[in-house]
Every structure is written in C-alpha cells, then in structure tokens.
C-alpha cells in the first residue's frame, strides 16, 4: 500500500481545503508536503490589555492572538510533521514528548491567564489554518462567552487527600517472622495473627481516611463555586506510597482564595486520618466545560 505507507518521511496523504503551510495541498489525496498547523491554547475575551509578548509555545513558536467574533484565540504555529494528526497519535505515546508538550501548553495558558480570563483548550487541539480557527470561534462564541463568565475572577485549586500513614513501622516490608518472633509459641500462627492485625489496621486507616476526605470535600465545595473530582492517581504516578482517597478541583472566587487556603489548612489539622495536598491557583482547566459535561462522573 504505497499511498499510506511509511510515516517516517516528510509526506502524508490527506485531503484538506486549506493549510497554513508553505506548500499547497493536493486535493486528490496524493502526496503533499508538510506545512504548519495552528495549536490552540485557549480562548479569551477580546478584552483590553496587551497580549503578553514573547511567550513560547509547544513548537517553539511564540503564541499570538487571533481575533474573531469578539473573542481571542491564543494560537501558535506548529510543525505538522510533529503536531499533525498522525504524528500526534505517535508522539502522545512518548512520555518525554508528552511532558514537554503539556508543560509548554500550560506555560502559555498561564502567561495569558495572568492578563485576562481564559478558557483553556484541551491538549492537542490543532487547526489547519487561521480561517479554521476563526470559523470555530464564530460557531462556538456563545459557549465561550458562557465559559468566560463562569471562570472570570475565579481560579482553580487542587486538593488531594492521601491515607495518613499510621505511626510506627508498618507495611508489607516489615518481616515479622525474622524478628523477635523466633522463640514465640506457634511462630506461624503468631505471624498470621500479626499479619491480620496489620491488614485490619490498614483497612481501618483507609476507611477513616475516606470518611475524612468526604468531609473535607464537602466543606471545600461549600467555599467553591463548583467542584470536580478526578479519579485518584495511582500511587506510582502520584509519587507516594500512600493511597489517594480524594483528587478534586475547586473553582474558587479569587476574593475567597485566602479563606479557601485557610480552610484547607484547618481541615488538615482537624482530620489526621488524611494528609492533604493543595495546588494552585491554576487556570480553570477543570471548569472550562459547563457543569455536567465533565467526562469523568467519578
């Protein structure tokens, strides 16, 4: 199948009506040269304030404003050979690439969010041309305005709760059979007994942590405009051995940020069964979509 063959070369097959690249496309779907696409970072209101200059995005190109329908799309040129649809599918499997790209995406959004409210776009939203972006802005204008109104003067805060590690040695690494249990009667039975106790203690700790986390979440939700729960991160990913029992994002009015932070602190003191982690303020990633449209119901 020569047409759809190796993807390593600077060629691909595609039909498209327009492209920002230097080469023109062949409508017949035969070989065409790679050009440039536009990576979308965020959409902002066409407000006041100068666009932050010189913020470098995912492909190394500076982010720039693209205006239509009274909105500003924050975009930058990216090379289709790296950020086109085919390449993206490949590159997203590469963790190093994903990390670089995610951080660059975030850096631009954050820089712009310092100037005006922005609706962050999900990673890897790519257009073939400025015209395509403008069309999108016009078609989705009402949605964006609604989202902008929702997040204006509000920020996202992340709170995670981990099961607090009980004091003293524990965990599966302890090997009771090797220690002082040597002379004890029925070593095997004693070992099993201790093992059971350990497991029970861990289950209790977890149960308690879950209950605490529910209280924490409920209280923080009261201080927030909106809340969203992400699935708990796997211990390996979170970089901690303790189990995560809450991974939530809260949309908080900026004027209440101090209050929110103080509440997290106070809740942490009041609930020793969990260890809390606070991150923020973030651009409102988790609240870019209207309530109920979030994809993970958990």
């Amino acid at each position, binding site marked *: 199948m020569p047409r759809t063959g190796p993807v390593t070369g600077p060629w691909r097959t595609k039909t498209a009506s327009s492209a920002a690249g230097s080469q023109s496309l062949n409508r017949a779907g035969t070989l065409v040269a790679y050009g440039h696409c536009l990576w979308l970072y965020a959409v902002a209101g066409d407000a006041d304030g100068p666009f932050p200059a010189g913020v470098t995005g995912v492909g190394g190109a500076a982010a720039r404003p693209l205006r239509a329908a009274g909105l500003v799309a924050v975009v930058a040129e990216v090379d289709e050979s790296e950020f086109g649809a085919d390449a993206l599918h490949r590159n997203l499997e590469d963790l190093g690439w994903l990390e670089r790209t995610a951080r660059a995406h975030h850096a631009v959004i954050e820089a712009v969010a310092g100037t005006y409210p922005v609706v962050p776009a999900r990673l890897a939203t790519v257009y073939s041309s400025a015209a395509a972006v403008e069309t999108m802005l016009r078609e989705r204008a009402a949605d964006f305005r609604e989202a902008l109104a929702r997040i204006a003067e509000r920020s996202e805060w992340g709170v995670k709760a981990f099961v607090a590690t009980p004091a003293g040695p524990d965990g599966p690494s302890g090997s009771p059979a090797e220690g002082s249990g040597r002379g004890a009667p029925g070593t095997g039975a004693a070992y099993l007994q201790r093992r059971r106790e350990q497991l029970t203690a861990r289950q209790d700790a977890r149960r308690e942590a879950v209950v605490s986390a529910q209280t924490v979440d409920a209280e923080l939700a009261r201080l927030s405009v909106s809340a969203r729960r992400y699935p708990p991160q796997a211990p390996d990913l*979170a970089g901690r051995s303790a189990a995560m029992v809450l991974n939530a994002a809260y949309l908080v009015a900026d004027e209440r940020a101090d209050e929110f932070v103080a509440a997290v602190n106070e809740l942490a003191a009041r609930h020793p069964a969990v260890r809390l982690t606070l991150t923020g303020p973030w651009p409102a990633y988790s609240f870019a979509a209207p309530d109920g449209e979030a994809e993970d119901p958990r």
Partner: protein
Amino acid sequence: MSAGRDGGFTSQPDLPDAAGIGYGPAIRGERIALVDLLDRVLAGGVVIAGDVTLAIANVDLVTVNLRALITSVSNLAKPPTGAERNR
C-alpha cells in the same frame, strides 16, 4: 521561566508542612507535578474539534497514555529515598 506567576491572584501564606498539609509545587512557582498537570490538560480544558485533530482532542487523549504513563512515570517519579531494609 519568569518568576511573576502569581499575578492577579492572592499571595500565598507560607504554611509549614508540619501542619499536616503539603503544598503542591503549583503554589510556589516551582515545578508542577506532571501527574497533576496531565489530569488537567488531558481531562480538563474545553473540548473543541480541531479540524486536524478531530478525534484526538475528544476521547483518545484521556486514555491514550495510561499504559505508557504507568510504566514510565513510575520510574521517573520514584521517591528519592531508597532505604528499605529490615533490621
């Protein structure tokens, strides 16, 4: 990276870790944990169909890398302490 990242937002009280709360790096302009960032850029953000990435932006991304992540990040994110011995 510039240091001016708390523009517009409230200043952050410097709370001691001893209070039982750990501040994530996002609060202090340090390096944000990749996993927290991925939660947001892969599952958050508004989903808009790009004409180049119609499907990608939608669903694929959320699951795309779980496989790769779980194997790779676990190596990257290992806590630095390696002492794990039984006396």
